[in-house]
């Protein structure tokens, strides 16, 4: 038994044969080459990683390190992307799914084969698209009826209170407009998708987006309908600034958000 290396698994796909080429140019989380381990009609994409970096103690420490997490998550995603470009369906595994050797990985493919094949069948030929809606900075939003006029000078306490009340009303109206815009956009895109998932809004520290994230959603779309979906997003995005929001599209992703059935 080799104790200095472990096997990091990225994704599972049908054993259709041609993945070798797609994987030739991509490297994994430890810069290692990635290969297909085949069993029971399935192929797990995996690469050898040093035990010193990926055993229990090392993982426990590393998972706490946001820098390590970012590098590893991006590398994991790169491998999944490369595979998704070559196979009709790829089931991404969660980060840090690690086996002692090929036998362990094969055992998993055998034990979980039925479940994995069912998921592959359900998601075959589908992609995930991510759509986020952000509030635009106030200046970028089109002016309301009175927004262009400079504020009247404050002459009295009553003026002040009146202005505060007006500001509160404006803010509330803006919030409602933004909420409404996000709901409408989500409802429209949902009609073009087979399934949807809503994520919590993102933390600006990680997204580096100045606006408030008011919609963070994933859409499951048949591959051939991808252009129809992205065209719709583009049209909605063109209209969005009028409601004070901007739209961001990511994808196509492997169907990460849809490998487990919708929560009840």
């Amino acid at each position, binding site marked *: 038994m080799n104790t200095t290396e472990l096997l990091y698994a990225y994704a599972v796909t049908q054993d259709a044969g041609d993945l070798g080429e797609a994987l030739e140019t991509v490297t994994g989380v430890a810069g290692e080459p990635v290969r297909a381990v085949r069993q029971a009609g399935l192929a797990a994409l995996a690469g050898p990683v040093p035990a010193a970096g990926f055993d229990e103690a090392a993982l426990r420490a590393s*998972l706490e390190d946001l820098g390590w997490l970012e590098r590893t998550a991006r590398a994991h995603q790169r491998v999944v992307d490369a595979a998704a470009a070559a196979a009709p369906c790829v089931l991404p595994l969660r980060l840090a799914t690690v086996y002692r050797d090929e036998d*362990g990985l094969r055992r998993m493919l055998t034990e979980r084969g039925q479940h994995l094949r069912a998921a592959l069948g359900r998601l075959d030929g589908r992609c995930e698209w991510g759509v986020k809606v952000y509030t635009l900075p106030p200046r970028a939003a089109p002016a309301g009826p009175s927004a262009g006029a400079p504020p009247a000078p404050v002459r009295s306490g009553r003026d002040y209170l009146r202005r505060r009340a007006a500001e509160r009303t404006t803010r509330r109206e803006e919030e409602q407009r933004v909420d409404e815009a996000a709901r409408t956009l989500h409802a429209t895109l949902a009609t073009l998708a087979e399934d949807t998932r809503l994520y919590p809004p993102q933390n600006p520290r990680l997204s580096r987006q100045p606006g408030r994230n008011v919609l963070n959603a994933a859409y499951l779309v048949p591959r051939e309908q991808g252009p129809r979906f992205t065209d719709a997003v583009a049209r909605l995005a063109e209209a969005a600034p009028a409601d004070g929001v901007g739209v961001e599209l*990511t994808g196509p992703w492997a169907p990460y958000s849809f490998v487990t059935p919708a929560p009840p």
Partner: protein
Amino acid sequence: MNAPLTPAPGGGANLADILERVLDKGVVIAGDIRVELLDIELLTIKLRLVVASVDKAKEMGIDWWESDPALSSRARTRELGAENARLQARLAELENAGARHAPPEDQEPGKETR
């Protein structure tokens, strides 16, 4: 931010986009190398606090958009703040439990884990 659409195929995804998928989604399957259940919950909570400005996990998406469309932004913000506080409390609990259970020789003395 004047560009209405930022198509971001592949590389354009931000860190939060990637982490919320690679860490929180995908097939969860037991590897031979097991990160203890406690550690996974701990990590997930920490990441939710970092990755998402708020955590309502699964029910949040549904409540937010479908169940209660009348819920105002402000009420939502308050509710999410409360949820965040609950997560922080659970995190502290888990960290205490972790400190009790973790064999001391596993920890490199003086090493910062964040």
